[in-house]
């Protein structure tokens, strides 16, 4: 008990010492340690570097400097809560936890505290329904879009007929991995393919039995909802059983360099979905080199620039910065509050021309967010790995997903959430 009071006093003094500045604060709940660090590090680096670039090159957003306090979550929900509580008093404008588990924790909390939450390509899919989830955004694409993109890709390969084909889903046995199952079941009924889910438990280092099952059942295609070390192991195991890599399709969280490099040559042909472009062949990377790297301000070790997940962090930061700019425009003040930030996100419009101005032409699809659609258009593409050149390349255009199936599911799931929590959906007209 004495110890507790001592610790309390010490923490209180430390907390009191941190100064409050009039900056735009974008906390980064990152994870640079633990079994998911391989994915967390590049994303956090990209997120931080983009804001550093804005500070160095443009003096922040609308003349106000951006601050990105980092907090280590280790992909752990308890630490995530601690990070959220410790940063929210700082004037945090937006949270991006990069973890579906932490997202589920934060959805009720941010709605109460009125701070927007952006879960880009992860989190609770039905948050796309802005009428129910006022404070949560998951544009430009979500898991159910991803599931549909994967099926669409398979449809393309088979000239539109996949009835009787077998598709297996290797998934992380958590809220994250279970997300696409409903959609894939619906799609399997619609297109007549046979669907088998295969669960892999956290952290996924041991997958022998799962791949034995796949070897025995010989599905025509294998989809994967994996993260962290699970991806590398899955790609390696697929190579071990000589599963044809071009029939193995990962979600966008299973398609980074970290996932395919350990399997070296045998990973060639592995496909993954994506909702933004790959590589570092964009003008913005020259600016990052000049204003961030050369000045020694790069986040982390600075060795991740141009990797898939770095680009995703960069893209997330770009969307956040654009939303902040939009908010400043709407409310006519540079010092925006979280409420204003939310208005900016809801009115966000990403056009081809704007992306060009930002030095990221064709980096992602153009889209806009509306009051009732917080999920954007859900466009996605397929990328493929080539071990010889060590590069991912897009092999399809950014295409739409099966809106009919997905919208019905979103309506249903968000309706269930509203009923559970006694929420009345807002009126968006």
């Amino acid at each position: 008990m004495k110890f507790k009071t001592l610790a309390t006093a010490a923490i209180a003094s430390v907390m009191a010492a941190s100064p409050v500045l009039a900056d735009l604060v974008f906390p980064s709940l990152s994870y640079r340690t633990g079994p998911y660090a391989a994915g967390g590090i590049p994303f956090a680096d990209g997120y931080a570097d983009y804001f550093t670039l804005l500070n160095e090159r443009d003096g922040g957003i609308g003349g106000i400097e951006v601050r990105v306090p980092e907090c280590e979550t280790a992909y752990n929900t308890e630490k995530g809560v601690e990070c959220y509580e410790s940063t929210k008093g700082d004037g945090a404008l937006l949270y991006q936890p990069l973890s579906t588990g932490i997202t589920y924790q934060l959805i009720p909390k941010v709605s109460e505290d009125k701070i927007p939450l952006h879960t880009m390509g992860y989190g609770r899919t039905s948050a796309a329904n802005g009428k129910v989830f006022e404070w949560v955004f998951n544009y430009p694409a979500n898991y159910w879009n991803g599931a549909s993109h994967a099926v669409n890709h398979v449809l393309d390969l088979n000239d539109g007929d996949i009835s009787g084909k077998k598709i297996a889903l290797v998934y992380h046995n958590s809220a994250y991995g279970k997300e696409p199952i409903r959609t894939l079941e619906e799609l399997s009924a619609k297109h007549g393919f046979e669907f088998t889910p295969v669960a892999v438990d956290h952290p996924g280092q041991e997958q022998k039995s799962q791949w034995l099952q796949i070897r025995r059942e010989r599905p025509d295609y294998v989809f994967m909802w994996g993260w962290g070390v699970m991806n590398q192991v899955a790609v390696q195991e697929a190579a071990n059983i000589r599963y044809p890599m071009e029939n193995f399709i990962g979600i966008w969280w299973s398609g980074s360099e970290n996932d395919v490099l350990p399997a070296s040559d045998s990973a060639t042909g592995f496909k993954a979905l994506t909702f933004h472009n790959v590589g570092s062949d964009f003008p913005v990377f020259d600016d990052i080199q000049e204003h961030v790297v050369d000045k020694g301000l790069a986040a982390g070790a600075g060795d991740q620039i141009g990797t898939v997940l770095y680009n995703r962090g960069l893209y997330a930061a770009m969307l956040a910065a654009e939303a902040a700019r939009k908010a400043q425009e709407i409310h006519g003040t540079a010092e925006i509050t979280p409420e204003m930030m939310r208005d900016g996100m809801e009115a966000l419009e990403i056009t081809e021309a704007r992306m060009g101005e930002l030095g990221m032409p064709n980096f992602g699809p153009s889209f806009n967010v509306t009051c009732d659609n917080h999920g954007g258009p859900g466009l996605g593409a397929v990328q493929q790995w080539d071990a010889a050149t060590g590069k991912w390349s897009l092999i399809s255009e950014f295409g739409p997903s099966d809106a009919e199936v997905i919208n019905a599911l979103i309506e249903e799931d968000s309706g269930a959430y509203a009923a559970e929590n006694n929420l009345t959906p807002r009126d968006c007209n």
Partner: protein
Amino acid sequence: MFYREAGDFKTTYAADAQTFPISFDRWRYYLVVGVAFLIVPLFLTEYMASAVLIPFLIWSIIAIGLNILTGYCGQVSLGTGGFMAVGAYAAYKIMTAFPDLNIFFVVILGGVVTAIVGLLFGLPSLRIKGFYLAVATLAAQFFLVWLFNRVAWFYNYSASGQISAPERSVFGYAVTGPAAHASSKYLFCLVLAFLLAWVARNLTRGRLGRSWMAIRDMDIAAEIIGVNPLRAKLSAFAVSSFFVGVGGALFFTVYLGAVEVGEAFGIQKSFLALFMIIIGGLGSIFGSFAGAAFIVLMPVLLKNIMVGGFGWPTDIAAHFEFIILGGLIIIFLIAEPHGLAALWRTAKEKLRLWPFPH
């Protein structure tokens, strides 16, 4: 000079048998309880509550529970995480099935359900001991987590397999759900922690506790002097699981609000609870609090010093946290293998002799 039995005359048997026979100890205890109940809620920030005090209180309850089983009755358990999950899922099912039931009873019922499950998994303890029992309880851990992941009924068929706590209140103050105020959550946990610690302390001083300790010290001798091992072991499993179940229910409803079983109640939670009682002191209620404080508060304190105070990068700080925490555990265990509670006892002995040590 003031820490003495001398001059503190006990005139009744009740006064003679009280928990804190030394008046200084007693007043210190009243002070701590008074501060915890009356002063802390006034100065409680949301961060202090959610990141520090609430997890501390909940882990204290769980540590007391495990301490009853392992510290007092000598049965090693690695199933704590699984039993926490039982408490949490029982609370979830009860709270969604009976929305009008007060959350206090939901949490207690969660504990009762866990006690029944614990009783079931305690049955092997009648035949096996030591490491073998640890492995049997390990099976409980994996089985329970698998069960809650596998059977959709437990999470009301939600798409993601997550369970989330709806808002419930006590005397009109919300204690679960996002709108709950930090102080009301804290007080709710504190009341339960206080009550359960009080119950545990008195149980262990009574006939039941003595029969547990007799079994722990030597089960054959205990049997010969008339302790029924079946009743002693199973009651230890039931009481311990009740505590752990209440802790698990609070962990889900008040602390996290939404959990997914594999992540929140995995094997690492079982180890965490075991570390708490080993560091805190086996067979001590104070030790359970001290161990929980050490394991819960240390990382937060270190993080705030290294990241908040020194401005170190978060990953370096996270790695140093492991090093420092591990180092401290080793140092503590070398300096005092019987845990923080034993250190505390030694300190009290010294105080008693001061200023004339021999």
